[in-house]
């Protein structure tokens, strides 16, 4: 919150002027100060990510990379005008949206500088399934219990990244694709430390540190591709292995609602679904190559008859299913000619000391695939 606006600057300047000898001189001096050309927010009020009205307990301080205007327009309409929005007292950090009779989107701030995130809660006849856990800020389990009326809950994550899996320790047991297990085992009591500076102040989002989880070990059930969660009465959700964004990235197909939860592999901001020739450094890192993601994406495209809508883990949801086919076209174009990008950015990874190139290729009608590519 910067306070050095035009008004403050003008007052400061006036107070440094020589003492006025008479009223007319004083008036002239104040006038001069008032017309001093200080721009309140710098030259050009170019708006990107202007604050969205919110009643969340957490307050955004800053983002790292700017979010695109499509995502922002979507979130503005959703968060300011959606009639299903609820904030439950049990967890004031989460906005709850009802997308289907039995499907809830749990929106929460990304506690670092990345894009804000979704958790999705599907309530079946006997059991419920939570896909992703965000950072675990606030009582997520209590919130799920309140929405489902205390039904038994499966918890699964699309991938291991901070903003999707750090809330896992709020639960006793978490499901994931088998490749992901060694990554989730690295979680520990200090994983949230980077959200605070050396003075203990919040860096990206203001919230009460006490509301983060107290870390405890949780059971990790790594399951194979095709594993089915039974929510009762024949209500099935299937894990479909994807790779790409992470070595163990999974999508979850809700066959009843005909919806697929695709995590971070397709997003209306930028879709980071692998690199041309830079494998991940962890176990099964080769699954982060675009050529491998392509095979798994193709499997999902071939099953488009089983879902109508795609639910990415950030921003825009309820995207028509053919977005996956458009992404496949885009990935194929990248693989055929990695130099055929539409634009590129210097990208700074967390704790990186030098930027790396991040190349962008347009997904027709949607956003971009961004990919790493080592030309050397």
């Amino acid at each position, binding site marked *: 919150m910067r306070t050095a606006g035009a008004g403050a600057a003008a007052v400061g300047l006036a107070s440094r002027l020589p003492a006025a000898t008479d009223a007319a001189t004083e008036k002239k001096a104040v006038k001069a100060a008032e017309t001093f050309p200080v721009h309140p927010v710098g030259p050009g009020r170019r*708006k990107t990510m202007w604050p969205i009205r919110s009643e969340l307990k957490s307050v955004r301080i800053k983002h790292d990379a700017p979010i*695109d205007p499509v995502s922002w327009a979507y979130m503005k309409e959703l968060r300011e005008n*959606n009639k299903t929005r609820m904030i439950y007292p049990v967890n004031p950090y989460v906005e709850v949206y009802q997308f289907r009779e039995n499907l809830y989107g749990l929106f929460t701030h990304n506690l670092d500088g990345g894009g804000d995130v979704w958790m999705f809660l599907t309530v079946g006849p006997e059991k419920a399934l939570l896909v992703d856990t965000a950072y675990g800020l606030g009582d997520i389990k209590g919130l799920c219990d309140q929405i489902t009326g205390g039904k038994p809950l499966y918890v699964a994550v699309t991938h291991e990244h901070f903003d999707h899996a750090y809330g896992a320790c709020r639960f006793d047991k978490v499901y994931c694709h088998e490749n992901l297990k060694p990554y989730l085992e690295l979680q520990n009591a200090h994983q949230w430390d980077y959200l605070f500076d050396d003075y203990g102040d919040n860096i990206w989002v203001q919230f009460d540190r006490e509301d983060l989880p107290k870390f405890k070990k949780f059971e990790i059930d790594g399951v194979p591709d095709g594993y089915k969660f039974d929510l009762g009465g024949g209500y099935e959700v299937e894990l479909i292995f994807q790779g790409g964004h992470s070595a163990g990235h999974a999508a979850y197909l809700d066959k009843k609602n005909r919806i697929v939860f695709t995590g971070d592999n397709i997003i209306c901001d930028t879709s980071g679904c692998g690199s041309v020739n830079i494998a991940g450094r962890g176990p099964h890192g080769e699954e982060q190559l675009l050529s491998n993601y392509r095979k798994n994406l193709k499997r999902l495209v071939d099953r488009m008859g089983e879902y109508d809508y795609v639910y990415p883990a950030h921003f825009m949801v309820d995207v*028509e299913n053919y977005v996956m086919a458009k992404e496949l076209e885009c990935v194929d174009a990248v693989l055929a000619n990695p130099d055929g990008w539409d634009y590129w950015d210097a990208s700074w990874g967390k704790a990186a000391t030098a930027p790396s190139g991040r190349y962008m290729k347009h997904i027709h009608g949607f956003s971009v695939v961004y990919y790493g590519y080592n030309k050397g």
Partner: protein
Amino acid sequence: MITDVCRPIATRSKARRLGWSVPPNLISWSWMKLLRENNKTMRIYDVNPYVEVYQFYDNLYGLYNQNLDGVPDNWMWLIDGPEKAMVIDTAYGLGDSKGLVDQITGGKPLIVANTHGHFDHCLGNCRFAKAYIHEYDHDTARANAKPTAWDFLFDKNGKNIYVDFDRKDLPVFKDYELVAVRNGATFNLGGDHEIELIWTGGHSPGHSMFLDKKSRYLFTGDIVASHVMMAGTGPRPGLAYGQYANLTTWRDNLSKLVARIDEYDYLFPGHMMANIENSVMATTLEAVEAILANPGNSTYIEEVTPANGIKQKRIHKYVRGFTTIGYSEEGVYPPKG
């Protein structure tokens, strides 16, 4: 096989979508689903059961019309000023649009204006006594306004093609006063509430935006919109002032609009996604400059067939973080001589 499907959006509107000539893109349809199914301000008035009314701000209403000719649905924007109200674009005039506007504003005197002279933005003008339009689109709009203008919405058996509605709810054509105005024309809605017409060209020779100087909205018409920003169709035989329907004209005028970015916060296009941050104007300018520097370096090229049945080669250039600019080879530079 890829099929671009836009699954139906739940609505209580009397109009029912039958099909598209050019379907909306993914980002637009997803935003529309969000808006139309769950926006808490949505209202359908008895006086016009075809139009969904959304209140975006205290003094700004969006009147959502399903586009009768099969391209993405269109907006009529209604600014409720202190003494007068202003309607920007009038769609096809399906249903009693004047009665609807009067009911929302409580019968305030009305100013009607068009962003450009295409059917889906000005055929509804004849519901009103008078409308304003930029001088370069005046003749096109004038020529479009005739009793047979709506005939192409029906097949040879008289059946609706793209949207199902009751044909008798179309306007009975009557002549109205169409006033040609120049770039910079200002409309006063009472007190200091002023709306300025800003000429852009590009999409059509006289295509213009409207700047609400008081509320800081910019109504961007068809040239900045989330489905596709058709900006350089090029001169066509018989098109008045066709020398302005190109990207160079658009670049020159867009540069001036970007220089005035201090004057507006949010964009309200003529179709689809609305309430978009002004930064899109600046990124669009970057993309237009890139096309002019190298028109061959497009993002992709496709063939489309609008309601007139004439196939078009449409060249697309991606605007970072938004959508694509659509243009033709003839629409990049002004015609020679």
